[in-house]
């Protein structure tokens, strides 16, 4: 159910767009209104979520320390894995965001006879995660060609590098292959490992199906079922300059509308889903705080009034016992 329900959802979405465009000819709805709406939901939603998190304070300094603390001068501090300064925190966060540092630590525990537990290296998830995120970013970057009249040089260079293998006509983009391969791996891993399958929710499969479908429709458009590329650019330029074209939308081809609609769904779904890890990782208090709470006092912004048991009350109860063994007291 958890695997099939989200798959059915994506198929229904595709059929809806197909019927809407091919049957009902709702080009303006799928070409202009849906992408604008999705974009607004994305921006407003992400902002709302980040502000929502930001509204909850961080009352205590709780970094997870993964290296030697700052201590005596002759003991070398691990300034990145256990930062005591803002600079160290920045490096730690950069490594976390751009290199997936923590995931790179991954180990696989195995119980052998003896009993003997061994912890082997397990970098495949890290590799697939890196491959997916970086190719996704690269592909988005390549898409900038649709939003400038002339193709900017960096975008052009990125295309050149991406197609350096010179395979096929049009030239195969390596990132397309790696992107789909990484998503396929992330999906297969979820269903092949009994433990991962057990913890997976429908919300873990849905974005994978969606991304795979977006990638596939993109590949189909580029290499197989051609769309009217001038019409596409006309539309994207119109969208980005807030002057969407009224004409020519019917010439583009349905594959493009499916591609665009699925991307719109992804964007609109993003803020309300686990995909918000992209924003959340920056706010994670176990990573983005220095371990300096013995050096500097950290203030809790909310009041925490509690009742104490004082020394006076303690002495009142135990005075005789204290005096009998010569422990000094305040009130003789």
């Amino acid at each position: 159910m958890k695997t099939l329900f989200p798959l059915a959802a994506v198929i229904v979405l595709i059929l809806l767009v197909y019927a809407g465009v091919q049957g009902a000819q709702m080009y303006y709805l799928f070409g202009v209104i849906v992408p604008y709406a999705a974009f607004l939901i994305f921006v407003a939603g992400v902002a709302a979520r980040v502000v929502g998190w930001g509204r909850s304070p961080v009352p205590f300094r709780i970094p997870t320390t993964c290296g030697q603390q700052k201590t005596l001068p002759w003991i070398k501090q691990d300034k990145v894995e256990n930062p005591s300064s803002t600079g160290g925190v920045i490096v730690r966060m950069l490594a976390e965001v751009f290199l997936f540092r923590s995931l790179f630590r991954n180990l696989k525990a195995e119980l052998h006879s003896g009993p003997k537990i061994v912890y082997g290296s397990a970098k495949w998830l890290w590799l697939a995660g890196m491959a997916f995120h970086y190719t996704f970013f690269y592909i988005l970057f390549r898409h900038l060609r649709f939003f400038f009249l002339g193709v900017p040089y960096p975008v052009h260079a990125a295309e050149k590098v991406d197609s350096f293998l010179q395979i096929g006509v049009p030239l195969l983009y390596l990132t397309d292959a790696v992107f789909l391969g990484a998503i396929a791996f992330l999906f297969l891993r979820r269903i092949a490992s009994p433990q991962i399958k057990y913890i997976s929710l429908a919300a873990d499969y849905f974005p994978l199906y969606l991304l795979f479908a977006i990638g596939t429709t993109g590949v189909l458009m580029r290499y197989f079922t051609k769309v009217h590329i001038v019409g596409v650019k006309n539309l994207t330029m119109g969208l980005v300059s807030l002057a969407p074209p009224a004409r020519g939308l019917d010439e583009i081809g349905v594959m493009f509308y499916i591609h665009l609609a699925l991307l719109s769904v992804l964007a609109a779904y993003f803020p309300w889903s686990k995909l918000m890890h992209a924003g959340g990782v920056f706010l994670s208090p176990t990573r983005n705080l220095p371990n300096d709470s013995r050096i500097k006092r950290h203030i809790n912004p909310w009041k925490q009034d509690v009742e104490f048991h004082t020394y006076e009350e303690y002495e009142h109860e135990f005075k005789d016992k204290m005096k009998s063994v010569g422990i000094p007291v305040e009130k003789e």
Partner: protein
Amino acid sequence: MAKEMKPNEIIASIDYQPPAKDWMDTPVEIKPGMFCWGAKGKSLNTVGFPNARDWNPLNEDWKLPKDWKGTVLEGIADRLKKYRSFKLFMDICVRCGACADKCHFYIGSGDPKNMPVLRAELMRSVYRKYFTTPGKLLGKMGGARDLDLNVLKEWWYYFFQCTECRRCSVFCPYGIDTAEITIMGRELLNLLGLNIEWVMGPVANCYMKGNHLGLEPHTIKSNIEFMLDDIETITGIKIDPPFNKKGAEILFVTPSGDLFADPGTYTCMGYLMLFHELGLDYTWSTFASEGGNFGFFTSNDMAKRLNYKIYAEAKRLGVKWILGGECGHMWRVLNQYMDTWNGPADFLEVPRSPITGTVFDNARSTKMIHVVEFTADLIRNGKLKLDPSRNDHLNITYHDSCNTARGMGFFEEPRYVINSVANNFVEMPEGTIREKTFCCGSGSGLNAGENIDLRMKGGLPRANAVKYVKDRYGVNMLANICAIDRAALSALMNYWNPGVGVTGVHELVANALIMNGEKERTTDLRGEPLPTKTEAGGDPNV
């Protein structure tokens, strides 16, 4: 209670294959040997906790207040507003599974609800249902479920099967810390009086008497006097430590476990001998007689209430700074919470070792340093006369306590001290030490007797790493800097690795310490014969 499981029974019972049925459809089964007895009404009453009554987790009726569900949901809403960690960690998990096999309870039990991700999902599923729109709309397909009595019992069972060790948080790509979720889970349960007696008893004791064990002032003194007699027998030196002494330079605070049972008492003898040898102007306190903080395992407020007495007593006695003993969660609390709760300690001075003159600038706000930092500095400056060969009968390995490792980063200091006072030291395998260290299986207040199966399962990864160095290098002593470890690891070693002892670092220090005017020692602090120079034990190549 059912019969305790044997080691081979535990190994045979581990099955990592999860059940075919979805976890939401698998109701909790409260198994004997895997849980601690419920908190007594008396203990809850002492600190004014709600729903104080005696109850039995095995009974159907947990004697909950009528609107318990409303209380829990309100409690969640309140904490989402107070803690960014909680809110964020409810939202951003992608269930990548990197944490799954990092938990000692999962490795040792195979129970999928001990995977950190699933432990958190126990709470997240309820959060989604009542606090997120997709969860409200999609229900179970959106990973959401109702909060009912079975869910509440599941929370209680599994949030007391987590030792808040934070090993999973090292591996999480977003730094999601299950300890934060367990802490919140326990706070919520606490609103209904659903704590465990092994935590609440010590909390009540600590609140009224100053320490978890409930040692009254005269008992603290007499317990230490017993140790002084032993020290005199072994070294010929008579020590007279000060108690509640006003105007002393340093207040010394250590977990009360060190005062009560071996091998903690040997560590305590180590402190006493070291401070005497240095002629340190320090004092014990019978009021601030607990460094540990079991309040931390009930609620943040309770932890603050118990922590209060350390600064209060330092102020009353007029000391200059505070020295803390060897303990695990005590140091997480002192490092990450104390100053925020009960500071500023502006009536104290930045700690300065009176022996070496070293100023501990890294504690310039809290004004409290770790005794191992203090001793490492002494050794580095050549202030101690040491004979490491007195520890030659020991092949030592070192267990990083979860809290000093991942809540502080205290790695090199203890290793430096051990290597200075002993000749035979070897590390356990990479992946089981330092920031990746494994919990003893009994932390966060789970060191009870009735949950022994749980403890031995959770301790398996740690014990297995010790077994590796025992088999390979003949390791016979497991050093650590944690009072709970000293108690818990002793039981764990007896169970999985008979013949391996457990020691605090300052016991090793005191064994090697050549004291002014001491007689020739023939035994170590445990009364066991010292190795003679000719038959020094241990493989020098280790």
